[in-house]
């Protein structure tokens, strides 16, 4: 049961991470196209600005869960490193399961309600002359927050079962 949960959480996080990576390319392409369209063609787009801010928002929200899975959200652990691994695991587990998981679940619920309302009312961007529908963007935020809540649950369980024993920083470059 627990292992299924962990697997599901990990799969979702890594799937969303792939979408987040695509967003980086979309962001760059939209900005570049705007430069060319404005400078070379003298015909700037109405959409590049919206696409840019939305893809930035989506890429970080969808990427956040995978970052947590890789334990790459920065911590300052010079003091906590002095504590026994079991105690550190208990702190992490407790904070993740009892505090952070409910918080992010609740945020995801609000985000979902916002997306649903935008869908029902046909809400469009407030000031953009392009005026795109907003529900897809809101939905992406809701999905990202939900995935983060799930990964927090998974990491909380992991921290209680097998506390990380090394320095938390292991991003290879």
């Amino acid at each position, binding site marked *: 049961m627990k292992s299924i949960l962990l697997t599901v959480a990990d799969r979702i996080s890594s799937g969303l991470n792939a979408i987040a990576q695509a967003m980086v390319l979309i962001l760059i392409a939209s900005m570049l196209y705007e430069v060319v369209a404005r400078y070379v063609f003298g015909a700037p787009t*109405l959409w590049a*600005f919206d696409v840019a801010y939305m893809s930035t928002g989506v890429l970080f929200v969808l990427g956040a869960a995978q970052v947590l899975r890789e334990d790459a959200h920065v911590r300052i652990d010079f003091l906590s490193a002095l504590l026994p691994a079991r105690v550190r695991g208990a702190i992490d587990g407790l904070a993740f399961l009892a505090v952070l998981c409910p918080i992010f679940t609740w945020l995801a619920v609000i985000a979902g309600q916002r997306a649903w309302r935008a869908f029902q009312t046909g809400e*469009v961007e*407030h*000031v*953009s*002359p392009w*005026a795109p529908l907003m529900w897809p963007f809101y939905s992406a935020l809701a999905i990202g927050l939900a995935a983060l809540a799930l990964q927090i649950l998974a990491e909380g369980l992991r921290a209680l079962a097998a506390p990380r024993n090394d320095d938390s920083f292991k991003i290879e470059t």
Partner: protein
Amino acid sequence: QDVTWRVPTSVPEGSPFYVNFLERFASNVDLLTDGAVEIQPFGAGILVPALQVYDGVKDGIVEAGHSTPSYLVNQDPVNAIFAGFPGGMGPEAYSTWIFQGGGKEKLAELRAEEGLKSLVVGIGSSEIMAHANTPISKAEDLKGLKYRTSGPWAEVMRDYFGAVPTVVPPGEIYTLLERKGVDAIEWGPPSGNLPEGFHEAAPYIVVPGVHQPTFLWEVVVKQETWDALDEAVQAKVEAAAELTSLQSLAHFYDQDMKAMATLRASKAEVIELEPAFQKQLTDAGRDWIQKTAEAQKAEGKPRMAEILAEYLAYEDRWAEQSGYLIRNSK
């Protein structure tokens, strides 16, 4: 009865709109209600997202919010009438329509449908039509002009004059204008533009602001929050709102005249558009809003057309009769 409202607005703290409209409203409310109602102003993006102040009030996050109908035009174009539109009434005529000609009642009806009480808190003066890198004095000058603008004016510029509306985020307007990445920008009234320093970035300043002859801000309160106030207090808060609007408009005029003097004395050249070209721009704006209202009507939403008809009748009467007024222009 002691009431405290947290009131976020859509502009940052320190902006002239914040100080002149919202902070003035807070102190007028304090004055007239003898401190029974406390308004706590908050700058943009602190309590609720800058452009979602109306939603923040509806969701009950804050008791009241301060914003402009401009940000609702994309959701419902009827708001363009209240936001100020190209070819619309200037501040004198418009504030008269709002407070004496039935305008604020129309706005109140519109907001009441969403469960909101609307108080007009702030009417502005005319904006500067453009800070530009190339001189603009006739319709041909607009053709192909990369022009940072938004809302109805963007559509009018594109569809009637062949200009190229360009989206530039606020933080990058100065740099892009200064480096000539865009040909022209519009932002706010003279006293709002002066501190932004656009006159140091581009050599031409184009007036008058036919694109935005005036603008309106309002404080919205959830109806049940409003109803919970004593009637006597309600009347005082309403009075504070109207007082604020009148005082702030006079303040804008005063600041704008001083700002214009500084702008004219700067190295930038002020271009005042010929009446014939002004009329061309104005007519295009009126044509745009009438077509928009008709399109709404065709979609089964006749209200915009109704309000617009009253508005334009008021504007026409003002135009025909106001010749007797002394305006001290040169």
